């Protein structure tokens, strides 16, 4: 039985061709939902602490519902990024494309611990966050392909996607960190108990403006969680070659810090809950280092194997893949079944395919769009094109 189920599973994971086979060839042992546990408790890795007496808990409860939701979300992001890889190689996506596959536990885990009314800002490896913060796969892919149905009407591209309480998508390394502290200042100013999650990478962690921001956030007790997504490489430079101290969770000095296993979604969630509570209680900023990994290179222009070995990448995939980790936990604790997860995989694939279809067939934005969105709330005016005779109308 198990062999047949595993065989069926492997066929599904092989790709669309396999999934197209008639269902009757896959032996399904029907299980009713009474066979599933409603929740399970897991041990999670203890976080290293800096200037903190206590840290996040070392166990986490995962309900069946949560598990299915996290699984589906991570799988959606995974497949969306892989689809983007495909579209880029077909030259349907152009320019910059920084993919997030491998890091899914970070964005999904963070979102699981905060509210939609909280705020989040990150750098350019942002497609996962655009999704978890509420943008549809359709709109994300159409933005990547530069179509009018994109979340920024095709005017932003990969690095400039925005949503409610999600401030992008920022192209300049480190610049988003002071912005995030400014958003946190607004949270404190308005007094609505909201916080801001301000993300940056291990490469950005050496930017001076981040230290300026640490200083002001601590001085003014801004409700800001600084989050360093340490995926071990800043473009082609490993952390050992870029930083005199690779303990990124300690780099905030007077700001308390936590080092978190960024491949374990429960670890991320529990640490973020802890950090959010710290901020909301008025204690000021806190720093989280999420130790994670990206399977792709820095961007689609980087094969990602000149500065690291294929063996290393393979090892992470086989031992620490965030989706596999969650899946194993759920299967081993009767929170779900292979079939159920397979059904989710099929749903996800379908969603991605439809979104990709839209993204490749939706028209590009009309030329009139070129002049728009220069100013907000401004009476229409003219914008100069490449010559004095070419003018575009600008409306906000």
């Amino acid at each position, binding site marked *: 039985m198990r062999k047949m189920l595993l065989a069926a599973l492997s066929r599904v994971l092989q790709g669309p061709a396999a999934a197209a086979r008639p269902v009757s060839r896959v032996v399904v042992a029907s299980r009713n939902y009474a066979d599933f546990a409603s929740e399970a408790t897991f041990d999670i890795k203890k976080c290293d602490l800096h200037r903190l007496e206590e840290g996040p808990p070392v166990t986490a409860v995962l309900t069946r519902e949560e598990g299915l939701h996290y699984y589906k979300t991570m799988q959606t992001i995974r497949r969306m990024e892989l689809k983007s890889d495909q579209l880029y190689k077909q030259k349907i996506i152009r320019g910059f494309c920084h993919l997030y596959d491998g890091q899914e536990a970070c964005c999904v885990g963070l979102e699981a611990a905060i509210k939609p009314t909280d705020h989040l800002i990150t750098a350019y490896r942002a497609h996962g966050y655009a999704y978890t913060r509420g943008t549809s796969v359709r709109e994300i892919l159409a933005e990547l392909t530069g179509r009018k149905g994109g979340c920024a*009407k095709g005017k*932003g591209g990969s690095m400039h996607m925005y949503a409610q309480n999600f401030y992008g998508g920022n192209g300049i390394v480190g*610049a988003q960190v002071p912005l995030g502290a*400014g958003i946190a200042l607004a949270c404190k100013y308005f007094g609505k108990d909201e916080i801001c999650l301000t993300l940056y990478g291990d490469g950005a962690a050496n930017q001076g403006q981040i230290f300026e921001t640490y200083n002001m956030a601590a001085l003014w007790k801004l409700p800001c969680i600084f989050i360093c997504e340490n995926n071990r490489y800043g473009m082609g430079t490993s952390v050992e070659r870029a930083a005199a101290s690779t303990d990124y969770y300690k780099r905030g000095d007077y700001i308390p810090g936590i080092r978190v296993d960024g491949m374990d979604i429960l670890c991320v969630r529990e640490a973020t809950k802890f950090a959010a509570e710290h901020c909301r209680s008025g204690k000021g900023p806190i720093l989280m280092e999420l130790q994670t990994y990206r399977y792709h290179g820095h961007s689609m222009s980087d094969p990602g194997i000149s500065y690291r070995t294929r063996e290393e990448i393979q090892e992470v995939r086989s031992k620490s893949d965030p989706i596999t980790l969650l899946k194993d936990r759920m299967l081993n604790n009767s929170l779900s079944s292979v079939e159920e997860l397979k059904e989710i995989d099929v749903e996800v694939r379908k969603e991605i395919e439809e979104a990709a279809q839209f993204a490749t067939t939706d028209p590009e934005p009309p030329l009139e769009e070129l002049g728009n969105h220069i100013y907000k709330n401004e009476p229409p005016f003219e914008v100069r094109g490449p010559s004095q005779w070419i003018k575009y109308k600008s409306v906000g």
Partner: protein
Amino acid sequence: MGPIGRGRGKMAAAAGALRRLVRCRPQQGLGRLLQLRSGIHGSAPAAVQVNVRDALNQALDEELERDERVFLLGEEVAQYDGAYKISRGLWKKYGDKRIIDTPISEMGFTGIAVGAAMAGLRPICEFMTFNFSMQAIDQVINSASKTLYMSAGMVPVPVVFRGPNGASAGVGAQHSQCFAAWYGHCPGLKVVSPWSSEDAKGLLKASVRDDNPVVMLENELMYGVPFEMSEAAQSKDFLVPIGKAKIERQGTHVTLVSHSRSVGHCLEAAAVLVKEGVECEVINLRTIRPMDVESIEASVVKTNHLITVEGGWPQFGVGAEICARIMEGPAFNYLDAPAVRLTGADVPMPYAKILEENCLPQVKDIIFAVKKILNI
């Protein structure tokens, strides 16, 4: 006696005040308020003398009071009352939440201001001088000016960046640069450059109320200069529209276009030239971007001669842009001579007084240029 209006007498008084100013720097904290009343029954409008510093202070106070989302941050703006005393008294009145002293971290606090604007506040970010804005220029251009466009209208950035710009007196090369051309270059920004107290007050208020990132280029040497402020200008809702130039002086023979402190030099030159029968039209740009080219064109059509005057460097400057735009438009056919630019000298600003003086367009340079362009 009729109401105080526009007239030679007022211009001469202002010119005199400016001449005194050129010789010695005004002390900080100096703000004389002389009430000039006309008419026995007080039914005529009452103008007052207000210096640029106090005008800015009033504008800040009024806008802080009007909208709770407005706040001021920058170095020494709170407890020191402002490096140039522009924010005097505001911290006492509004407290730590609304008037924030920052550490010396331009890139950091500018980014914080921009982020706060993205999240719904309306910050006023003060640079002690615009020279220091260079350290933060990425936040002004890449984070503030481009975000509305990149987000296709989803994320507005209603922030005001303000502070003294351009040359001061004896502060050396690193503290004397004019950034009008640098910021004026960038779509997504509005850039304003006040000359008079009315300009300063009205433009600052308009900038705060504008939903876009505005760079306001003030001038340190103008802070202590008094100007007459009409009764209308004293109102709490007095605004100077962004994007509209002002004709400070009507004329027929030549158009002098300028911004900031140079406007005063143009008016001084005009006062001298009128004795020789030359009537200069002096245009105060007030806004660098979006520039009111139409007003310049209309003036050139009338006078047939154009001279631009600015403190910034010549290459790729405000004057260069004006000349290019005039060439492209209908006014070109009305020019009787090529347009002329008066600018700062093409060198870093030296310290010694005689050198520094000769690095900026002086009144005598404007007079010389007018005579040259008119062939007299």
